[in-house]
Structures are given as C-alpha cells and as structure tokens.
C-alpha cells in the first residue's frame, strides 16, 4: 500500500511538471463563482488578442524619458500598502499598477526603488500564485548594478509576458484582465500627470490614442461585470470612456516604403493617424484618470 501511495505521489508530481514545463505553474486559485459562471460573450481567443493589444507598460515610460522629462517619484504608487491588499482582485489590479511603475523606474535606472517595487510585485504575485514566473534573486541582483539595465528590463518584461500567457492558458483570464487594467490605468496616469507639468504634442497624442485601448479593455471587463468589484471597475472606466468619446482618431492613407540601407531593412509608413482632441477634452480625461487611479490605489 505505501508503495502504491509513493507511485501515486510521484505520478501526480510528474504529471503536474509535464503540464507546466518544469515550473510550478499548477497552482490553483479561488475564483468567485460569479466570475466563472458567466455566459461567454467573446471567445478566449478574441480575449487573448484583445489583452495582447494593450501596449507594453514600458512604452509610455519610454516616451516620457525620450521627451526629456525628468524622473519624479510623485507619479508612482507607494508600496507601503501592499500588506493591506488581501483579495485576489486587489492583488491582481495592483500588480499591474506596480508593473507599470517598475517599467518607469527601470527606464530611469532607479535601482534602489526598483528593488522595493520588485519586492512588492513578488508579494502580490505569490499571493495570486504566479510568483514562479519571476526569478527575484536574479532580478534583485541585476537591479543592484546599473550596468545590467538591459537584462533587468528584458527579464522583468519577459516575466510579465510569461505570467500573462500562463493565466490565459489556465482559464484565469479574469486576473490577467485586472493586471492589464492596472498597467493601463497607471500608464495613463503617468502620461497625464507628466502632461500637466510638461505639456507636449506627442504626449497628448499618446493620451488621445488610449481611446483605442480603452474600448478594448471595456469589452473584456464586460465579461466579468456580474461580479460587483468588476462592475465597479467597469463603471469607472466607462466614465473615462465617455470623456474619450468626442476624441476623434482619423486616418490618412499612404503607401508604405521599404528602405534598405547597410543591409538593414526599414519600413516607413505613410499612412497616418491624427488625433483630434480639444484642450478641454484632454483636461477632463486627465482629471478623471487621476480620480480613478487614486481610488484604485486606495483599495
């Protein structure tokens, strides 16, 4: 009997490892029935497509840095509240917020703060059983040396991508959606706050084009709205969506051009998107984003 039991244990362990490619990715998590038992309005494939569409958390930070805007810790969410985040809803949403902040900190090479944010991300990711995707020992080692910025960026962004793929493949898209929403709102908050102090046409355009992303996020969140928390989040995003409604994104046609120089290929696009947004519309988006983001970090 003990032999059979040992075989059973070994078999289960191996089966779990085979499924997860050697990592401990077989962890389970309690998901409210109200979330799981929804009728599917859009397919998983479409959901994944939509969530993949959300631009990377480092893109907004990269634009801000390229614009020459100096670093400020006023824009990022404090980490001293991590212990108060007790539900998977709060943890996933704030994981996204800290991910966006981590991108900003990495971009400006703020290694000391990076370690603080990595610790918070580790706590939250362990809570929602996705900590296995982050090699925190390596990340912290890289963060202590500013020469390792490229590796640090690669490993941290890649870890988030892998975590997202895992959540999708394990029917935990609801958590992935929350993380992505956190990333998006923090990115928009960062962009809008920087704009308030350092107005710039390109930054305004980047804010205006968030209309495209928001439309998709709302579509995904609709799927989970039977849960009160998701419904509230959706309603807050709908307020921002309404403010984006008069923002017009129009397109001018043009043929792409292929340029080969020194053995390198470059495609120059001659199609153009143009954002029509008044200063008043932008101001109301900035204010609403600030309100929503500040409420989310006060959960």
């Amino acid at each position: 009997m003990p032999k059979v039991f040992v075989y059973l244990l070994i078999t289960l362990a191996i089966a779990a490892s085979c499924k997860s490619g050697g990592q401990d990715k077989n962890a389970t998590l309690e998901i409210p029935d109200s979330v799981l038992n929804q009728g599917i309005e859009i397919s998983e494939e479409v959901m994944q497509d939509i969530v993949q569409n959300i631009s990377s958390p480092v893109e907004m930070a990269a634009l801000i840095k390229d614009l020459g805007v100096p670093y400020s810790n006023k824009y990022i969410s404090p980490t001293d509240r991590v212990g108060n985040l007790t539900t998977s809803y709060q943890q996933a949403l704030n994981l996204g917020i800290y991910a966006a902040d981590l991108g900003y900190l990495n971009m400006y090479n703020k290694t000391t703060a990076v370690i603080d944010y990595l610790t918070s991300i580790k706590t939250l990711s362990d809570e929602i059983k996705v900590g296995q995707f982050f090699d925190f020992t390596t990340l912290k080692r890289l963060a202590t040396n500013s020469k390792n910025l490229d590796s640090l960026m690669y490993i941290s962004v890649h870890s988030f991508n892998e975590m997202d793929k895992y959540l999708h493949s394990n029917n935990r898209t609801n958590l992935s959606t929350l993380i992505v929403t956190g990333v998006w709102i923090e990115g928009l908050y960062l962009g809008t706050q920087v704009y308030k102090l350092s107005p710039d046409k390109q930054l305004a355009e980047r804010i205006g084009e968030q209309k495209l992303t928001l439309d998709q996020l709302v579509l995904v969140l609709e799927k989970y709205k039977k849960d009160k928390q998701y419904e509230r989040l959706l309603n807050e995003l709908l307020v921002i969506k309404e403010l984006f409604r008069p923002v017009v994104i129009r397109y001018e046609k043009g043929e792409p051009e292929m340029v080969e120089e020194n053995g390198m290929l470059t495609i120059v696009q001659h199609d153009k998107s143009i954002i029509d947004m008044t200063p008043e519309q932008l101001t109301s988006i900035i204010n609403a984003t600030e309100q929503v983001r500040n409420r989310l970090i006060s959960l």
Partner: protein
Amino acid sequence: MKKFILILSVCLLVMSAHSQDISQLTAQCAANAGDVMYLKDFVVKLDQGTPGGAPPTARFALLLSKNVVYRFSICTAPNSTGEAILQLFDGSTMIGSTFIASTGKEFPFFDFKCQKSAVYHVFISFKEGKAGEGVGIMSYVKKL
C-alpha cells in the same frame, strides 16, 4: 508501473529541456535585436503544411503607437526543418517581412517607423510550409 514512471520521467525531462531551449532562444533573439528595448515575444511551433495548401501560420494581434520605431526580429530554433519568416500586416495589407520573396533576400529583423496608432498583426510561418519552431521579438527602438 516502473515503466510508466520512467516514461513520465522522460516526458518531464524532455518538456523541461524544451521549455528551457525556447526560453534561451527567446533571450538570444532579444539580445540579437541590438541596442533596443524588448517588448514582446511570439513563440511558435508549427507542423508541416499539406502539399499545395497554404503554409501553417501563427497570428498575433498587437497595438502599435504612432511616432515610434519598432523592431521585429525572427529566430528559428536549431531543430527546425523550415526557416521562420515574420510578416507584419495592417488589416489585409502586408507592410513588412523578414523575407522578400521577389529578391529572395532574408533579414534577421526589420524596423518599422509607425505613423498610425492601430491594431496590427504579426504572422509567423516557415518557408515552403515546412515544420519548425521559432520566436519573433518586438522591440522598442526610439521615438520618431
């Protein structure tokens, strides 16, 4: 029972090694992209296509922003029969590819000077519809 455990153990080792290989290929491919910032990867494993049919293709949606130069790189896993090709589509129009069929030229990557914020699609396939594994990488180069 012992045989069963042995088979499962081999399965574990093979899958673990495979996962590590792809992970290494992704890291290597990102490093080969040059002095750019990694944003996303697209890992593919495709079977051989049927004779006369369209080559099996993996598709990924992505949102690109105006005034940004992106780099799209492709790497083929060493055990692949075919060679991976990455193509960028805007709607039904192909706007970039790592393989130019008219000249036969291949590129490990191409840069895309994006002027239109929109949803694009990356398609990855293998030449002549052969089987293979590969990874595409999207990186941020600079703002325009």
